[in-house]
């Protein structure tokens, strides 16, 4: 993988996660959670802007060109972030698994040789720690909650689990990721799915699920209809 593809992978994970989380805006279960999810979406968007700006410099493109004018095959995000939000439990499972990847990733990058990437990662790492905390709190409450919430949280974990293998196929090891995830699932009284089953991937090389194109259509339509549009 080239250096640019690597940066695009980090940046696109954050961008697509931000877009998905923003879909909850004004439709969260409670007003307080609405603000929390919007905050997390903005954290992800902030990291995406820094990472895509950096990636774009060697491509001669700015952050807007990368966000709004690439087609799905040019995106390098993992499949997990583009999956639909589903119910609140699915959204929390996705955020838990993503932040358990981004936290050790950014921690390692913050100590890495690339000073600019290290500075971006050092800032994003603190935000990821909060995202992990927030999604852990909800996973525990839903998993160890009512019969209905437990069933939904377990379903969400089971549904999203296969997509986590793509997260741990790169710079974050499966064991580092599990070190964060397993205690949360245990406290939530949830069954940790087994590894070794279906493990879809392809996001890092631009082969995505059908969901990404629809997400991009909504995210890009304004910029493509009115090139250079500004607020």
């Amino acid at each position: 993988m080239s250096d640019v593809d690597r940066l695009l992978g980090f940046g696109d994970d954050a961008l697509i996660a931000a877009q998905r989380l923003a879909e909850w805006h004004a439709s969260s279960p409670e007003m307080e959670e609405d603000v929390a999810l919007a905050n997390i979406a903005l954290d992800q968007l902030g990291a995406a802007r820094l990472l895509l700006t950096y990636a774009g410099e060697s491509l001669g493109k700015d952050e807007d060109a990368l966000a709004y004018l690439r087609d799905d095959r040019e995106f390098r995000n993992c499949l997990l972030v583009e999956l639909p939000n589903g119910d609140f439990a699915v959204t929390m499972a996705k955020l838990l698994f993503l932040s358990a990847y981004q936290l050790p990733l950014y921690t390692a990058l913050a100590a890495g040789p690339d000073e600019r990437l290290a500075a971006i990662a050092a800032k994003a790492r603190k935000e990821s720690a909060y995202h992990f905390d927030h999604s852990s709190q909800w996973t525990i409450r839903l998993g160890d909650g009512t019969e209905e919430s437990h069933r939904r949280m377990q379903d969400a974990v089971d549904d999203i689990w296969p997509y986590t293998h793509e997260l741990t196929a790169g710079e974050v090891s499966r064991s580092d990721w599990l070190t964060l995830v397993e205690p949360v699932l245990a406290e939530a009284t949830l069954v940790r799915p087994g590894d070794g089953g279906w493990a879809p991937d392809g996001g890092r090389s631009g082969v995505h699920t059908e969901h990404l194109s629809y997400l991009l259509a909504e995210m890009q339509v304004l910029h493509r209809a009115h090139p250079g549009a500004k607020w």
Partner: protein
Amino acid sequence: MSSEWPLWEVFVRPRRGLSHGHVGSLRAPDAPMALRNARDLYTRRQEGVSIWVVPATAITASSPDEKDAFFDPAADKVYRHPTFYEVPDGVQHL
């Protein structure tokens, strides 16, 4: 389980050396989530260094009906107010 989350009152300490002040209220299922919601609602622009959340039901408030008996007797006792000395320059919080 009631369908609505309980109400919590939020107190934020703006910076070291100042007291926690009441900033508002919010709804949350329990104390740890109330603390996190308070962080998102009341300190996202770096308004504070410390947060307290208190169940609204745990607060005992003075009654508006007893306002006169509670507060008026203090009005004509100027000697209770620290108004008879100069405040030194540079003291911001007295």
